[in-house]
């Protein structure tokens, strides 16, 4: 867990409003990163965006010592980031959070991602090269569809869907999941997406209580390291609801524990 300056190696557009940024830590020192962890990036020239923005670590190239994340422009901070140029310096803290964890016995792993929720999932391929992956990716419409090639290459099957049916199967990703889960019957599900999707997912998974589901949760953050208690997420444990820190106790929780 360090905070340091990075050099922007690349900041490319993946599709309208979605970018991929690649950074190199200026210390040259490499941190060990677990899949599903995130980094927090300072917004340059920030009058009303003092806080760092959290982004899932999309890829980490240990050899080149380059770390990348993908992001969607949704507000002031991401807007600023999208205008950052190659060669600029950015501060950031990494690696943060707990990450996904796949046990020895879990061989068949299904990844379920909605929209920008697919980003944290990509890092598991590299971290667990021996597993068999199935990817279910959902987007609003054709023009939002991204990174399918990257996921396809590393999955034994990719199910793509768009809400308006303009590409892949038509409808919500959770419905595509419902149609395919019996057939795939994974040992573990890893998932990330907006709250409504997670709620629908809970409903779909009601019939498969034996399949563990790990979800990566989003909440607004300040420190990013677990000290300020700003990023609360209500988690039910042994019947009691307690507030956990998304940045430290998460961002990955069991779907069955988090109060959505």
């Amino acid at each position, binding site marked *: 867990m360090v*905070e340091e300056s990075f050099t922007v190696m690349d900041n490319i557009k993946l599709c309208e409003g979605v970018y991929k940024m690649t950074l190199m830590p200026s210390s040259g020192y490499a941190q060990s990163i677990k899949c599903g962890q995130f980094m927090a990036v300072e917004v340059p020239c920030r009058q009303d965006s*003092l806080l760092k923005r959290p982004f899932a670590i999309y890829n980490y190239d240990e050899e080149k010592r380059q770390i990348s994340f993908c992001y969607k422009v949704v507000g002031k901070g991401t807007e600023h980031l999208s205008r950052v140029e190659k060669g600029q310096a950015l501060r950031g803290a990494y690696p943060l959070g707990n990450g996904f964890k796949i046990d020895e016995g879990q061989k068949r792993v299904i990844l379920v991602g909605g929209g920008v929720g697919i980003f944290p999932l990509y890092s598991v391929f590299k971290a667990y090269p021996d597993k068999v992956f199935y990817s279910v990716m959902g987007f609003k419409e054709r023009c939002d569809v991204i990174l399918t090639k990257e996921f396809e290459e590393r999955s034994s099957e990719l199910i793509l869907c768009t809400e308006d049916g303009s590409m892949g199967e038509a409808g919500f990703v959770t419905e595509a999941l419902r149609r395919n889960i019996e057939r795939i019957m994974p040992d573990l599900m890893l998932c990330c997406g907006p709250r409504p999707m997670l709620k629908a997912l809970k409903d779909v998974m009601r019939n498969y209580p034996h399949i563990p589901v790990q979800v990566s949760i989003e909440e*607004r953050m300040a*420190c990013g390291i677990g*000290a300020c208690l700003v990023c*609360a997420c209500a988690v039910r444990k042994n019947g009691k609801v307690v507030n956990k820190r998304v940045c430290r106790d998460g961002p990955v929780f069991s779907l069955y524990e988090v109060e959505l």
Partner: protein
Amino acid sequence: MANLEVTFCGKKFKNPVIAASGTFGFGREYAEVYDISALGGIATKGITLKRREGNSPPRIAETYGGILNSVGLQNPGVREFLEKELGFLKSHGTVVIVNIAGSTEGEYCEMARLISRSEADMIELNISCPNVKEGGLTFGSRPESIESITRLVKASMEGDMPLIVKLSPNVASISEVAVAAEEGGADAVSLINTITGMAVDVRTRRPVLANITGGLSGPCIKPIALRMVYEAYRAVKIPIIGMGGIMTAEDAVEFMLCGASLVQVGTANLIRLDACKRIIEGLEKYCLENGIKDISELTGSLITE
């Protein structure tokens, strides 16, 4: 080299920089980032008598030059704190200030008694909390209630642990409330706590915070905090801990010039994890460059003709 050490209420601080309550947890996380024994002191997250889960998220909003938080005193309760956290904090050889909050006088007194028996160094009384008896008005908004709560807490403490009263800026006259704390027997005052504020999302037409209002902190409040420290310094004889928007060593010096003997750094920790460390280094440099032998010379030395 300049002497950065400050003796404050009989306690030795390596330097005048204290990590402010609520932004530094109980030190564990920052200890993974840098050696926190470099700090003058650490003020803990606000502790209550019983465990509290705090408010619903979102608990944070960004504003121009600041942040609004509505954490709502999430903490494990005083007993668990003393058992599980105090030891770790004390192991770093830095002054440990326990920040406490209650909703009744009884709660404050019970906590103060328990802590005064512990190896903690000082207590900081957070009086910005709603007083259930007075129908939600905070303890810190009226001079009379500040004096009375200070007196009661002081009386319930065993031994000679110093008591700091942390003043709320949401008052008509800061000198009046500082004097009230002094008359109640406070050994020092710290100021300012956050200023109540609010942020609105024009897209959803809702408040950004689930709690509607929150506490404003960060560089945007510095001019208000400086003015209040300046006014308090001229009103009381007890020493002062200044805070509110300190981001750099120069900011810390400004507070000292206005009358602070020590400073606390809050929001800056959230923005740059090593903020306190950098400020300490910056103070050393400032003293060197300005020929200051003992940093306490700065306290109250503002030139106003």
